[in-house]
């Protein structure tokens, strides 16, 4: 290894640490909204505060159905017909700004705060 290799190594560690720091700064919120998008259009918009029990949700997609569950704390993808299952392994998302995406099926779960929603181009209700 040469000198610049160590520089690259240190820089990458710093960038990763900075990223984690920024993620951790994003605190939890009591007023969370679960947004579910399919083909870049919002198909579900749920205020998690009002959710009493764990709820199931199915979204029909190109290769079958994506099954989603959510409760008052967050949401997760239970099963998906996509090949890599990254969305399923992403696990439960609970904090504003967190996402679980299934890129092959173009489905996105995101948790947002009401104030941030104003940034969307369009909201379909």
């Amino acid at each position, binding site marked *: 290894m040469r000198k610049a*290799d160590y520089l690259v*190594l240190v820089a990458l560690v710093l960038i*990763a640490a900075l990223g984690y720091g920024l993620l951790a700064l994003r605190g939890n919120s009591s007023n969370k909204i679960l947004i579910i998008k399919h083909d870049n259009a919002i198909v579900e918009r749920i205020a998690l505060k009002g959710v009493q029990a764990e709820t199931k949700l199915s979204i029909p997609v190109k290769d079958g159905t994506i099954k989603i569950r959510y409760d008052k704390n967050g949401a997760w993808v239970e099963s998906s017909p996509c090949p890599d299952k990254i969305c399923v392994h992403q696990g439960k998302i609970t904090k504003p700004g967190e996402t679980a995406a299934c*890129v092959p099926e173009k489905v996105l779960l995101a948790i947002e705060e009401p104030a941030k929603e104003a940034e969307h181009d369009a909201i379909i209700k």
Partner: protein
Amino acid sequence: MPSSNKLALRELTQMGILLAGAIALRLIENTLSYLMPLPGAHLGLANCITIIVLYLYGPKKAFLFLTARIILVGLLFTGLLTPGFLIGLGGALLSFLVMALGSGLTVLSPVGIGLLGAFFHNVGQITVAIVLMHTTALLSYLPVLILLGIPTGFFTGFLAKLFLDRLRSYWENK
């Protein structure tokens, strides 16, 4: 020009073997991906071959090599122009650009190139994913990908260096 033809043929054969190796490594990686802490993550062993080709034949030929690999991997595994293919393409092109520039610098060894390649591969992938999904929220994936890219990039760069050193000593002793 018999001699230059012979040289071209020799290079073509060597690159063909390396290309087959890169595809085989990708296949092995696909079957071993359950060992990775994050699903969909790869060791980047195929990138190890890209680094070797970059050092042995220079950026222009390495770019042709990469194009062939991307098309073949697309045909064999992900399918051409699927979202997964496009995300991989974004990662491969951005990381190649940076690695090609970096390989011209004497202050960097293949290890540094491997680290840079892994980092920019992740950045390129997330950029394409953000464009496809219309959301910047995917940036929250980046820290874990960058962190994972440090050991894997180091490993692939180290393997490339090991291979290049042995190949050079083999050629010298021949």
